């Protein structure tokens, strides 16, 4: 066993660090970084100019689209370079990218399954945040059971005419394009009559209605599709061959290692909070149960980190990805929840205090984190579905007839 990066890798890391230091700095807020990017770019008018300028700057420097082919604007970067990039960006807390869905889901899907025209047309615009994308998978009757979707498309000479409804669509309001699943053969078994389409959100018949989430924010939307025309060239893969492409879409995830650094940072906050909040003359950290709860989180984060190393090591060695991905996703999502529960426990008597109230702890960040973490185990496959997958695909238990 050997955990070292090569010299070339370490040089890559150094260059990136230097660049990040100049362009992000140690403690610059996300707004400041984006503002600077916007000024540097000199763009204006577009309300999202600041948000777009930052990924463009990253792209100009060669730090997005790492695994994508150079001909479509990618970097053809090695796997370890991708890991280093994810680690270093998490370390300095780079601002979120407005084109994340494009970069992490539809981009890789098109790289793998798109036609030459689709790649040329869409990939560069994803990289430069010219096009923002949203995902049209879930429907009111198709949540966990995605394959039972009802949104359907009639096929004619020019392409598809789509009718139906999508729901829980993040960022649909801002998006230029949506990738979606529609039923193109209602008579086929349910996983075999689905096609994968790309939809220009400005097409007539598309309407978006925002949904407010439980935490009070507006991340979700409903999208209604009423006789919406999609040209034939916007089909990805084969007609009725959308299901396996959608499954692989869901697997395109960033390396788990950047998630580990975020969790570690959260643990650091928890530890500091527990050291500061008073319980009379003592602080909350003097309670051995609290210490053990935090030590347990330390253990779990290290477990996840080293699981990531194993997955990575296998990938570099060209071995098939083992249990790592689904295992890591399930474990991380439960851990994230448990950590926010620990936070509320540490807040103790001050737990109920809402933001902007006197005595609020950490400006109420833990309430928001708690709701987010609970939502996280639902979005992108519930923990229950993950356990089904692990039981069947990893443990090889017999599959129950009903899914």
């Amino acid at each position: 066993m050997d955990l070292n990066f090569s010299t070339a890798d370490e040089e890559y890391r150094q260059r990136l660090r230097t660049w990040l230091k100049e362009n992000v700095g140690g403690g610059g807020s996300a707004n400041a970084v984006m503002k600077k990017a916007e000024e540097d770019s000199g763009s204006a008018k577009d309300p999202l100019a600041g948000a777009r300028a930052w990924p463009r700057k990253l792209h100009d420097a060669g730090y997005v689209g790492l695994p994508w082919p150079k001909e479509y604007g990618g970097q053809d970067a090695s796997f370890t370079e991708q890991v280093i990039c994810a680690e270093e960006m998490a370390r300095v807390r780079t601002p979120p990218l407005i084109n994340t869905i494009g970069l992490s889901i539809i981009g890789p899907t098109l790289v793998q399954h798109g036609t030459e025209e689709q790649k040329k047309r869409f990939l560069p615009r994803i990289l430069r945040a010219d096009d923002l994308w949203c995902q049209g998978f879930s429907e009111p009757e198709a949540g966990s059971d995605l394959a039972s979707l009802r949104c359907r498309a009639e096929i004619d000479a020019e392409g598809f005419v789509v009718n139906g409804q999508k729901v829980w669509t993040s960022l649909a309001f801002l998006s230029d394009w949506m990738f979606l699943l529609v039923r193109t053969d209602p008579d086929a078994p349910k996983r075999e009559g689905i096609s994968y389409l790309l939809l220009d959100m400005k097409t007539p018949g598309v309407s978006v209605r925002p949904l407010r989430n439980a935490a009070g924010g507006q991340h979700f939307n409903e999208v209604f599709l009423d006789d919406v025309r999609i040209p034939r060239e916007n089909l990805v893969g084969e007609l009725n061959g959308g299901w396996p492409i959608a499954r692989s879409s869901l697997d395109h995830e960033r390396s788990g290692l950047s998630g580990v650094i975020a969790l570690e940072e959260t643990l650091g906050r928890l530890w500091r909070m527990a050291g500061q909040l008073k319980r009379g003359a003592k602080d909350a950290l003097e309670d051995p149960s609290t210490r053990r709860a935090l030590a347990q989180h330390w253990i779990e984060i290290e477990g996840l980190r080293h699981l990531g190393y194993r997955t990575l090591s296998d990938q570099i060695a060209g071995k098939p990805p083992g249990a790592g991905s689904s295992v890591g996703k399930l474990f991380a999502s439960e851990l994230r929840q448990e950590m926010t529960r620990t936070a509320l426990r540490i807040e103790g008597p001050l737990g109920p205090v809402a933001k902007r109230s006197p005595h609020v702890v950490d400006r109420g960040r833990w309430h928001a984190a708690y709701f987010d973490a609970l939502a996280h185990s639902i979005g992108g496959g519930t923990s229950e579905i993950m356990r089904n997958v692990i039981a069947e695909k990893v443990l090889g238990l017999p599959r129950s007839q009903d899914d």
Partner: protein
Amino acid sequence: MEFNLSEEQEALHEMARDFLSERWPLDRSRELLDARPAVIDEDVWQEIVEMGWLGVAASEEAGGIGGDVMTAAVLCEEAGRGVLPGPFESSLIAAIAIERSGDQALCKELLPDLIAGKTRVSVAIEEPGGLYGPETVATEARETAEGWLLSGTKILVPEGNEAEKLLVAARTPNGVGLVCVAADAEGVTIHRMDRMDAQSCAEVVFANAKIDAGTVLGGADRAQTLLREIYDIWTVLLAADLLGSAEASLDLTRQYASERVQFGRPIGTFQAVSHRLADILVNVEIGRSLLYGACLALDEGNDNAAPLVSAAKASLSETAVAAAETALQIHGGVGFSWEYGVHLHLRRSRCNAALLGDADHHRDRIAAHMDESWVAPVKA
């Protein structure tokens, strides 16, 4: 031997549930989340007052109904189920405190107006020191030439902004007890706070504030016992509220799981769903049993009441939060929509779980009880 609700209590239970489901649908509570802090509609409040809920545990002479702690718990359970905002519960506690103080003047002067909804009185116990329980009170009342003066800070005082009088837990020369202060007295500063569930509450700072009646409730003899009683009663009423919340979460989820079809069958037929709900049902039944036991012990003046109160609070704090989290999880995306009411129960139960001592605090209190008086195997 009878160990369940009496017929009268059952009737009250049903009546309260029907009233709230009709007059206080979940939609109203959700709307109030935006109108922070939540203030109840005046017309609904008047109906509640007219039904006599504020005096449910006060004697008939004082204009009350003459019920016991158990009867008050019946209403608080329904308040929890129906996500009813204040000042119902704080007024109820205040009325119980005043009546139990035995202070004739106060009972005559304040209680009838309180029960009739004319004067708002709240109770201020928690402090920013991070500790729970009357023995940790730092607020202090001193006797001076100008009368009794109060100094200290209280937080999370329910409806502290709307109250005209405050019953304040304070360290006095006669031990820790409750003193009564006018909200507009000199030296009282009130800052609005609110809670995760949008319930109105306040930070109240006392800087040599003048005490109203000039003395501690219950007098030197009873002050400390009275505060202890109020602490326990309030705790058990929070437990009742948590029970109502847990049951509401369970009901919503049971219904959703029976109807929502995925993979060709109702999701309630999947053990990942049905077994989680079964476990919650078990804990709800255990929590209800502990709640009844604690109420009965308080009503009978049983020495063993305090650990049972702690048991009910610890148990239901964890059960209600787990029920609401499970509800959210099983409802999937729907549960996370603002329009659906599940998150209201999560917010309320998270708050009530922390108020007047979280589960670990109450476990520590039980362990202390075991240290003192728990002689293990009972012999004939």
